[in-house]
């Protein structure tokens, strides 16, 4: 019985080629079998996402922003509050604090290096 040892590159390329081919086949099957006219119903036009109150949804289409805040709210609200309001708040002097601390860190390393 012969074995075929592929290196990771060729294997990945081969596999992704197979995947692309099968996706294409599935897509072709899908478009041949799928309905030509979309199914509509009034019940589906009221989206409700992840505990988000319906009042924030202005249009029929769910706003991407609401969707994402719905997702990230549970996960990292405090993190995002810190990142947006403490770091990326657009005030030049607050950036300067981080940048200057970085200079301080680098010069501290230089100091440690040549004073040892």
């Amino acid at each position, binding site marked *: 019985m012969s074995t075929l040892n592929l290196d990771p590159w060729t294997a990945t390329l081969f596999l992704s080629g197979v995947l692309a081919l099968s996706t294409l086949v599935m897509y072709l099957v899908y478009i041949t079998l799928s309905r030509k006219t979309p199914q509509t119903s009034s019940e589906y036009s009221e989206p409700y996402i992840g505990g988000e109150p319906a009042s924030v949804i202005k249009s029929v289409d769910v706003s991407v922003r609401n969707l994402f805040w719905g997702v990230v709210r549970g996960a990292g609200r405090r993190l995002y509050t810190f990142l947006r309001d403490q770091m*990326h708040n657009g005030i030049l002097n607050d950036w300067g604090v981080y940048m200057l601390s970085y200079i301080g860190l680098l010069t501290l390393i230089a100091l440690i290096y040549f004073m040892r």
Partner: protein
Amino acid sequence: MSELNTFLFNILLFSLFFNVGISLYGIFARPSLIKKIIALTIFSDTANVLAIAVGYRGWPSPSQPPIPPVITTTEPSIDDLTWFARQAVDPLPQALVLTAIVIGLAVTLFLVFLTLQVYRLYGTTDVRRVARLRG
């Protein structure tokens, strides 16, 4: 005499380093854009003076201070050149500083125009209020 020279020269260099700190404070912590630009010019001039000071040399002899790197004859002999090279200061930092001055001036000039435009559009040069971009 030479001890005094060394002492004064070292004081000059320490004050330059101190100046680096002060001007960086001005750039990073003062709220006004105009003051930031002024501090930036102080900062780049400090760097330039530092470079010039590095190119300076000790006095060739007790009575003879260093001379600028300019030959005063048009047909120098080898002896003239040897004498010149033993007296003159380092010309390279001066040339580098000449380049750095022009660059600093060009950047400052453009920043001044930008600040003018910021003032036209925002009505202020306080960076705490010139902060429409966030997040």
